[in-house]
């Protein structure tokens, strides 16, 4: 048998076999890369979902705290306990300042919360004045009405969040 024929024939077979193995190997590598990528994406999505759940829970808790605080402000104003009323006002303002830019607020809610913070600043100024005996020790009806409006606004948001939680 001619040596060159042997070399060409088996050389060709070996080349083809090598090519097939390379293609299979490359395909397998691609498959593995794709598989690990989709696994990473799934893990990322799950992590994002978990973060969303935690932040929703946190937001819901903040709104519940805000509802309780505004109700306490009203009660302490009625009881003429000015120091506690100022303290709750300040706490409420801080809580609302923390949620005002939250993406979970819908439509006009952000604007309403922003106005509530402004009203609380004005009410706090008035209560501070009473504390320093600069003003008569009473809260004007207009301010009590503003507090009522804040209660309604926050209760609505609270109700909406509860409804969403029940749907989930």
């Amino acid at each position: 048998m001619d040596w060159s024929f042997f070399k060409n024939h088996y050389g060709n077979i070996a080349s083809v076999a090598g090519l097939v193995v390379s293609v299979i190997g490359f395909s397998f590598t691609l498959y593995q890369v794709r598989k690990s990528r989709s696994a990473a994406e799934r893990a990322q999505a799950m992590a994002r979902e978990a973060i969303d759940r935690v932040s929703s829970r946190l937001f819901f808790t903040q709104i519940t705290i805000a509802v309780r605080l505004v109700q306490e402000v009203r009660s302490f104003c009625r009881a003429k306990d000015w120091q506690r009323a100022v303290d709750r006002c300040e706490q409420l303002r801080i809580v609302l300042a923390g949620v005002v830019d939250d993406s979970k607020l819908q439509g006009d809610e952000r604007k309403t919360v922003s106005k509530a913070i402004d009203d609380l600043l004005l009410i706090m100024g008035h209560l501070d004045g009473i504390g320093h005996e600069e003003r008569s020790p009473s809260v004007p009806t207009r301010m009590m009405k503003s507090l009522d409006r804040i209660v309604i606004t926050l209760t609505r948001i609270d109700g909406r969040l509860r409804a969403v939680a029940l749907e989930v």
Partner: protein
Amino acid sequence: MANERFMQLINELNQATLDGRVRWEETAKEGVFRVGLGEGLVRIQTGSDDEENFCVVVYLLNNQGRIVDELRAWDNGEHYNLLLDLYQKARSSALNIDLVVDSMLSDLKAGRVRDLPSDTQAEDIPF
């Protein structure tokens, strides 16, 4: 002390209020008015010091309620006329004064008078 951009905002707000393009609203405190714009609020109010010197103050607040700038104009001082003018326009806008006066003028023109409940009627309530 207000910066130039804030002054520009006040001037444009003054014009927008005059044109009726913005609507001011009342706040929790009598005689204090605000308008929500962009990422914050502009609040205008009057005040006085211990010696009864009158002033008009405009506050620029961010969404968190922090005062980021303010302009206070004392009676006959710098910017006083501008701020007093803006305050009056803001008050008029918030209280719908033009609407009320227009309705009164139209009633006057038509010779109509709205009947107001008399004081004696209240006493007639049987309980």
